[in-house]
């Protein structure tokens, strides 16, 4: 994708690509566990100051733009490096930046930047599908604190997180926009029960049950019952970040496929000589360009008016879901049996891309949202 990167941005891209290629390339991974790898990558990102990109300088951040986060996520996608960047910096960091008070920011953001603390955002529930207003987990006020009861589903990054942001209903009926509040909860709070697991794409996640988990009222972020606006803003940022990761991944897959077609032979000639495959590779490239374009456009809209921000974020997810699924499926197909194994990175990219489809809402959900916002 042709884009006028600034010098700093080009430097950041190059640095991350080198880091991941040299220290975290797929071939070395058999030597270490997913967790160990993630921890090491996290340390490297902290050292590079990448964890501080989106934050204000007063908390040690480097005041970056939305585009900078896109660069990081795209590089993580390209390198197939599983880190809590999305949950900690984009989701957690976003909720802090747009919702938290001075004090909480001052206490938490430096921990994020140094890599000392990780954050996870528990918003999805078994019945909620992709609707962030569909919150059943209840927060009932009792004197100076709230008691949380209910469950959250597939919370990425939760097992390693020290702080959890939790959307909870303080008022109203299950799907009402009003009555949704946001709390920050220590991961080790009494009554909080986690079932941790790895996902099929080797990320860390958990289902969480809350039994009378008590938090002080200061743990509430933003106005009571009015947290949905904040949540939606941060989810828009996360949508674009997830799309950027997918764009990085399909870029890598396209490169793998071109390489494979040049080297692998069938019926006495390289695959790259078969017109059907040649055209498919072109279509894959066209799809990549399209996904890349809409992601950059959406990133540029993130700090604009909320309607256009959400509209473009949803356009982005809709488009990237289609293009990335097309490329990922074509890439496995094109590699044949070897693409079906755990030994080649293609299958790992495939799983990541296919699971990114769902994250923060699939193509259908976001297409409807785009249409509603286009009226």
């Amino acid at each position: 994708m042709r884009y006028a990167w600034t010098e700093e941005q080009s430097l950041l891209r190059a640095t991350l690509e080198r880091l991941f290629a040299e220290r975290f390339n797929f071939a070395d991974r058999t030597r270490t566990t997913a967790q160990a790898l993630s921890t090491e990558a996290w340390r490297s990102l902290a050292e590079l100051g990448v964890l501080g990109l989106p934050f204000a300088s007063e908390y040690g951040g480097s005041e970056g733009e939305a585009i900078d986060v896109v660069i990081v996520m795209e590089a993580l996608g390209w390198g197939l490096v599983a880190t809590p960047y999305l949950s900690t910096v984009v989701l957690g960091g976003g909720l802090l930046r747009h919702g938290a008070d001075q004090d909480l920011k001052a206490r938490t953001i430096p921990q994020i930047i140094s890599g000392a603390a990780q954050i996870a955002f528990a918003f999805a529930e078994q019945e909620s599908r992709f609707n962030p207003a569909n919150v059943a987990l209840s927060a009932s006020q009792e004197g100076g604190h709230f008691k949380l009861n209910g469950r959250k589903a597939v919370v990425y990054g939760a097992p390693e997180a020290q702080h959890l942001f939790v959307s909870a209903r303080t008022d109203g009926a299950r799907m009402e926009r009003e009555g949704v509040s946001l709390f920050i909860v220590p991961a080790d709070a009494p009554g909080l029960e986690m079932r941790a697991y790895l996902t099929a794409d080797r990320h860390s996640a958990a289902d969480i049950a809350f039994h009378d988990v008590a938090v002080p009222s200061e743990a509430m972020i933003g106005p009571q019952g009015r947290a949905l606006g904040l949540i939606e803003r941060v989810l828009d940022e996360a949508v674009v970040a997830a799309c950027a990761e997918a764009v990085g991944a399909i870029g890598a897959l396209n490169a793998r496929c071109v390489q494979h077609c040049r080297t692998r032979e069938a019926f006495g000639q390289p695959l790259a000589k078969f017109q059907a495959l040649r055209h498919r590779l072109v279509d894959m490239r066209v799809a990549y360009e399209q996904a890349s374009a809409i992601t950059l456009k959406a990133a540029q809209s993130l700090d604009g008016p909320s309607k256009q921000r959400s509209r473009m974020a949803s356009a982005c997810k809709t488009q990237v879901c289609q293009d990335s699924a097309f490329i990922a499926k074509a890439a496995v197909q094109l590699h044949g049996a070897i693409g079906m194994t755990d030994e080649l990175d293609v299958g790992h990219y495939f799983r990541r891309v296919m699971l990114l489809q769902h994250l923060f809402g699939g193509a259908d959900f976001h297409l409807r949202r785009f249409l509603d916002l286009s009226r």
Partner: protein
Amino acid sequence: MDIETLNLAADEIEFRDKVRAFYQENLTPELRRAAQLTTWTFAEFEYGRQWQKILYAHGWGAPHWPVEYGGAGFTPRQRLIWELETARAHPPEIMRMGRDYAAPCIMHFGTDEQKRFFLPKIIAGDDWWAQGYSEPGAGSDLGALRLSAVPDGDDYVLNGSKIWTTFAQYANRIFMLTRTATMEKKQLGITFLLVDMDSPGIEVRPIINIAGEHEFNEIFFTDVRVPKARRLGEEHQGWAVARYLLLFEHGAGLARSAAELKRRAAWVREIASIESDGFGASLLDDPDFSRKLGLLEIGVEAADFAADQLILAATSGSAPGYEAELLNVRSRELDQSLTELAMEAIGYYAAPDQRDARYVDPKANVIGPAHVLMPTPIFLAQRGATIAGGTPDIHRNNLARHLLD
């Protein structure tokens, strides 16, 4: 690209307003209607001709030409603003083969004599050129050209035929590729000639297109004598001229085609908002229709952004080329899907043959509501968007070569 995103300087805003005012004053209802009734590349000829004369009268007959030949001397930014405002105003598309294709080649390869003779008539809207490339049996494969030009004294004698010559029925000149020799490399031995359409031995046969309109022609050449003075470039070296011309055919109009795509999407949305879904709501509320429209609108957003980046890169001097072709493949698919959706939107009224109602000065009333007039002919004619200028297979072949070889 939205002109707003260009954050214009004061003098640029002034320029923009000047252009807007010009369109405001000069685009008569007839001219606007001519633009709206365009199904394929060019508006009804007579109105394109009128419009070119208006442009010329304002000194904007060919803004992109060098000033010495009558160009407006725009800066790259002004050129961009001009294109965006033009797309916004939507004037009738003129038959552009002379002004945009032949002229640049004449400037680059032509003799002083040729420049003096041809260029003024083109910019003034007095000369109209056809493009004589394709021949029966040689579509995208120009190497296979056979129309022969045999030197005879001061002339060439032409025999053979050209086909798919758009609007040749209105042209008084034609630039064409002819075979003057058969050589090892098939591209060699081709000579580029500038021919008068009224030369004895030229016969034009109309070809009615799939939308029932007279867009194409086949032109037969029987012992047509063309003075050697009408040769552009060297003998046997016509390929060099053709390649040069191609730059203008492709590179140009990125901004325009992106803007047209956006206009098309808005047009479909408008039709859908007028149409009923049959159950008491607007077709725009139909989940299946809105889904298809939404997906295309998103595709247009992506294509538009990609075009912006190429345009900005181009104005800063670097050539699009490969990326432009990539974008082109996708944009044409989007455009065709939009035209199909427009036809789907009007339901049963897609069927009536309404040719007679589609003239600027109509010969019949529209059957059904006004908005059903254009979708079917536009859908039909736009099938050509993936045939003229290379099929998707041809483009994919090119792109694959770039990607893999």
